[in-house]
């Protein structure tokens, strides 16, 4: 099987590229390659984490996966009941139908939900706009999603502004679950939440994936969260997949120097560290530049850089079953 593929895929990204062009007056147009040739499949009921620093392209990839950003080239396909829908080209009725199948949970529950709306209305309006008119069905569906996200029904009469951040994020998830979507992009769903609330949100996602077969693309910058939340982790760097594989293997046996650096830098409970300096085995910062370095995009920061890395682009190689990395060391 090719890199990033899986059994029973519900969403397929094939050689996906998303480029942004910006043109200033009197200047040459510049192209930013946010996603640069990514192939990835997400299986039914699977949670795949996209991990990377800011500027690695993970959010753009998530948006392209559900059709919110059009691919520059490559293809995004939703596979359901043997029917394939080209997400990137969908228009009109197909597009509206897709909105029920592909959903997104946003990072910031304070800006993604209208605070001046009652909780009930913020759940009712999406249902109605998708043609669910029967009052009984509306209220049954709303009760059901509230139960699934662990919120008491009494909150339905409250205004959104009266809720805490953790409760608002649950409303954000409840809205997504209204139509039992095929795939949900969860864009940093827990990074704005307190530690004591993160676990519950991750558990809701786990349960939906297991019980209803909903697939999730879980975007996070936190390797530890990725390990808990996802079955597979894809590490992105400058729009490319540096490494992809089963979560446990990527964390316990990382191949790519960038994955290793991310893991090394991740804080762990380690009071003995206080007198030591943490090793940071990369140079400088991730530079969002319009021109990617030639060869391996990571080579200017890589501690193990070789001559070959500066000229040739490494392909993803399978180094153990289902575990791929793109690095000339292997």
């Amino acid at each position, binding site marked *: 099987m090719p890199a990033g593929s899986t059994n029973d895929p519900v969403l397929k990204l094939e050689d996906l590229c998303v480029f942004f062009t910006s043109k200033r007056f009197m200047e040459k147009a510049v192209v930013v390659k946010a996603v640069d040739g990514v192939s990835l499949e997400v299986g039914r009921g699977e949670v795949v984490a996209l991990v990377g*620093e800011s500027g690695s392209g993970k959010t753009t990839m998530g948006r392209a996966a559900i059709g919110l950003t059009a691919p520059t080239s490559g293809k995004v396909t939703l596979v359901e009941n043997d029917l394939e829908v080209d997400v990137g080209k969908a228009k009109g009725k197909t597009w509206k139908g897709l909105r029920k199948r592909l959903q997104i949970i946003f990072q910031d529950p304070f800006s993604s939900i209208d605070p001046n709306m009652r909780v009930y209305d913020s759940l009712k309006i999406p249902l109605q706009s998708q043609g669910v008119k029967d009052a009984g069905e509306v209220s049954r569906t709303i009760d059901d999603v509230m139960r699934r996200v662990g919120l008491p029904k009494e909150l339905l009469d409250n205004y959104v502004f009266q809720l805490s951040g953790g409760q608002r994020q649950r409303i954000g998830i409840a809205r997504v679950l209204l139509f039992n979507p095929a795939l949900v992009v969860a864009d940093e769903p827990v990074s704005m939440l307190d530690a004591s609330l993160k676990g519950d949100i991750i558990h809701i996602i786990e349960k939906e994936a297991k019980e209803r077969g909903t697939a999730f693309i879980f975007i996070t910058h936190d390797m530890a969260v990725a390990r808990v939340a996802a079955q597979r982790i894809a590490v992105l760097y400058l729009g490319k997949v540096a490494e992809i594989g089963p979560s446990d293997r990527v964390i316990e046996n990382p191949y790519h120097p960038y994955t290793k650096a991310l893991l*090394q*830098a991740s804080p762990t409970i*380690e*009071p003995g560290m206080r007198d030591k300096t943490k090793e940071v085995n990369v140079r400088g910062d991730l530079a969002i530049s319009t021109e990617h370095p030639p060869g391996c995009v990571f080579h200017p920061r890589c501690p193990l850089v070789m001559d070959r890395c500066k000229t040739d682009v490494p392909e993803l190689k399978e180094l153990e079953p289902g575990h791929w990395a793109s690095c000339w060391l292997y």
Partner: protein
Amino acid sequence: MTLLEAKGLSIVFPTSRGEVKAVDQVDISLGEREFVGIAGESGAGKSTLALGMLRLLTPPGKVVAGEVLFHGTDILKLTDEQFRKDYRWTKLAMVFQGSMNGFTPVFTIGSQLKEVLALHGREASDSTISKLLETVDLDNSIASRYPHELSGGQKQRAFIAMALSLEPEVLVTDEPTTALDVITQATIINLLKRLRKELGISVLLITHDLALISEAVERLYVMYAGGVVEEGPSIDFFAKPKHPYSQGLLTSTPTLTSNEIKGIPGFLPDLANLPPGCRFTPRCPFAMEVCKRDYPPLKGVGGERVACWLY
């Protein structure tokens, strides 16, 4: 020796629903050359506490009780002018999460650093600036750059350089790495550890991230709903946290070595309408009758102090 100390500090915010007790009779101390952490989630009062201690509270928030001693002087009793002249930035400096956005976009980093030095009558030469930048691992060329040309980590480091420019004795950092990537975060924490050693300053690190705190501090306070629930040396705390909230917070912190994560059921109580007893009671797995009635005082348990009726 104790350098900075808050004693019985209480800070409230009057609202239409009544007074919100953001910080309630908190004692905190920071010794000379000590690295101390304050951990807690949103609403714990940790940032408000720091702002109160550095006289940076903005109305309607106000200190209603307690004192803040720096070398034994109650700095809350000083006039604004006295405090501004002799303490702010010269003895007590602070770096916030968003500090890196505090630079003016229209002047170079170097000129903004010079301004601080000049305003306080210090030598503001190019060589002082380059020395300052060197202290925070930044290249000399940064001085001639504008803020937008720097990455988040570079800006945050430049801001730390600014905070250090007047050689303060205390550096308070409030979530200094929260908006930054993990690799940048690690370099900033390394930097704070090194600065404490090399410059002999005391550092107070406020963060919600227990893992981050565990790698940096010697001693920590855990706050919940405006009060300190546990305090002790970091080695003792992380070996076995005593307060049920601390225990919950630790198991809620995702780590690379575990596939499991637990949360703490329930939500923070309404700070304008606090329950009479221990504030953690509604979420506590060990809640007893006494917890609902009386607020537990901090008691010595092992090498730590814990506010819980279990002990």
